[in-house]
């Protein structure tokens, strides 16, 4: 800009020779404010988000118009007819048949064959890179031992292994409460310890008893009874839940995940985990809003769920 001012006055400006710098404009600031309002609105409420979106759209449009004004203002010139060789000059009034010289054919066929070979090599490799992460997902059933280890109306911390061959990385923890019989059907509350914020391990607030090793069919399980559990807390970012796993404070976006269960030969068996939006009531009378298992931090209910499509690749069980 300083150079502009110092240039001797009156000289016509040749825009072609200028560096193409965008002219100073305030539209980006208004656009950014609109985007900011949109993001804040997504958290606070939808009307604010809509206003932000409208502001962003209007000022984004104005910004684009400003930025492209120079290009659009340039008169569209007829391109000069390129000098062509004598052979290719069409006679006046005579239809020239389309010509495909040998060189163009060879060029195109080389490119085509190259692209074909590239595709044949690349696509399977890409598929191999991506696909295995999404197929054969699912959860093995885990035997947690005899029902006698789970006294009624008390939480028990059960530590078990989800996979056999991965060492302590496969270690999982669930909080299990025997709710007694409801309509002659046994009822258990089985809550995953995975925090619904970013997946850290939550802890029950209560008085832990003595840990006990349980022999099961395959994998070692440890059970620790906990007296008077009032809720669960996460050490990472302060998420807090009540005794049913509903969020009471902190950043989590939903309740704690739960497990389905089976009873086989008098043993409690964990089946597939599922995500929970909210729990009404307690124990055996609880009404649970169940959803397919989602990663921590993903909304399963409310308007935000449109951002997190359910994982279609998880097999039903």
């Amino acid at each position: 800009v300083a150079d502009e001012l110092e240039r001797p006055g009156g000289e016509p400006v040749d825009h072609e020779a200028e560096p193409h710098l965008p002219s100073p404009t305030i539209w980006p600031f208004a656009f950014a404010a609109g985007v900011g309002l949109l993001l804040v609105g997504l958290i606070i409420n939808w009307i604010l988000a809509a206003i932000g979106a409208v502001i962003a759209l209007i000022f984004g449009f104005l910004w684009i118009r400003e930025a492209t004004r120079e290009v659009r203002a340039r008169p569209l010139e007829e391109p000069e007819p390129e000098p062509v060789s004598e052979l290719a000059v069409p006679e006046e009034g005579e239809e020239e048949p389309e010509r495909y010289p040998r060189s163009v054919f060879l060029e195109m066929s080389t490119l085509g064959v190259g692209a074909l070979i590239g595709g044949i090599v690349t696509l399977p490799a890409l598929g191999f890179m991506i696909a295995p992460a999404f197929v054969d997902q699912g959860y093995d059933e885990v035997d947690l031992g005899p029902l006698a280890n789970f006294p009624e109306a008390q939480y028990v911390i059960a530590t078990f292994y989800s996979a056999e061959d991965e060492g302590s990385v496969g270690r999982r923890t669930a909080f299990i409460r025997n709710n007694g019989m409801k309509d002659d059907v046994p009822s258990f509350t089985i809550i995953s310890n995975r925090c619904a914020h970013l997946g850290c391990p939550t802890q029950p607030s209560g008085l832990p008893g003595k840990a006990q090793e349980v022999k099961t069919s395959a994998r070692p399980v440890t059970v620790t009874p906990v007296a008077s559990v009032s809720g669960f807390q996460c050490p990472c970012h302060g998420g807090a839940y009540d005794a049913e796993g509903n969020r009471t404070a902190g950043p989590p976006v939903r309740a704690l995940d739960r497990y389905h269960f089976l009873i086989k030969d008098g043993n409690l068996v964990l089946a597939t985990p599922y995500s929970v939006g909210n729990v009404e009531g307690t124990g055996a009378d609880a009404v649970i809003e169940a959803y397919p298992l989602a990663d921590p931090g993903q909304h399963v209910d409310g308007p935000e769920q449109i951002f997190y499509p359910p994982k279609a690749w998880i097999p039903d069980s």
Partner: protein
Amino acid sequence: MARTRNKRQQQLMALVMAPLNWLEERSGLVGALKYFLFRKVPAETNWFHTLGSATLTAFLVQLVTGVILAMYYKPSPEEAFGSIQKITNDLTLGWLVRGMHKWGASVFIILLFLHMGRVFLFGAYKYPRELNWLVGVILLTLALGEGLTGYLLPWDETAYWATVVAININANAPILGPFLGDFLRGGAEIGEETLARFYSLHMLVIPGGLLGLILLHLYLVIRLGVTEPPWTRAAAGYEFEENGRGPVRKGLVEPRPRGNGSLGTPSRSEAEV
């Protein structure tokens, strides 16, 4: 050099020059290296201009120590932690190389940000260097990716839980999040697939991208020249002619002249007209 050499010095000189001349005649590499090393830079360059080279040096340290660590590290859930322990405690000088790699990673990232700050505060991202800024942004992203993937490899509690949180943050991205989370984990849960793919990303994919983009970054620096600090008027590679209409640039690129026939900076006499 005007100083006369004695016979012995001349013999020594010929001994050094013969292979260099042989190489230069057949490849031009010596000339290219000279062009690269003895470029014109602005008169008022200062210590802040060394931050880019410092970042490159930090990257090269990571490259060398990383290659050596890969000779002893075993990327499997059963052996990863043990092999790190072995490198640190048992192998000769292993503690030093691992320490260089671990602390050098932080040094690399810190220098990247300082270099970025220098470029921003000196206005070195402006025309015609916008593209180099964009390349730098991708380099920064890749470097942070190196930090993320490398953090899992020690396979201890810190590594595991930090990666749990980091992957779940990625999985919180709208729409793509659920796909991204499972892709990074290599499945529904963190396990051996996660470790293997983070290892592959950390030592093959991302370093390859970094190397290629660093070469592009350097090429653009050489092509466009070093930016002068904002408090000076003389630009890199410009030589002012006293009686000419404007500065003449000596370098690889001849910028297109302005409407009045001058280049970027008008000469003093021109400005006073």
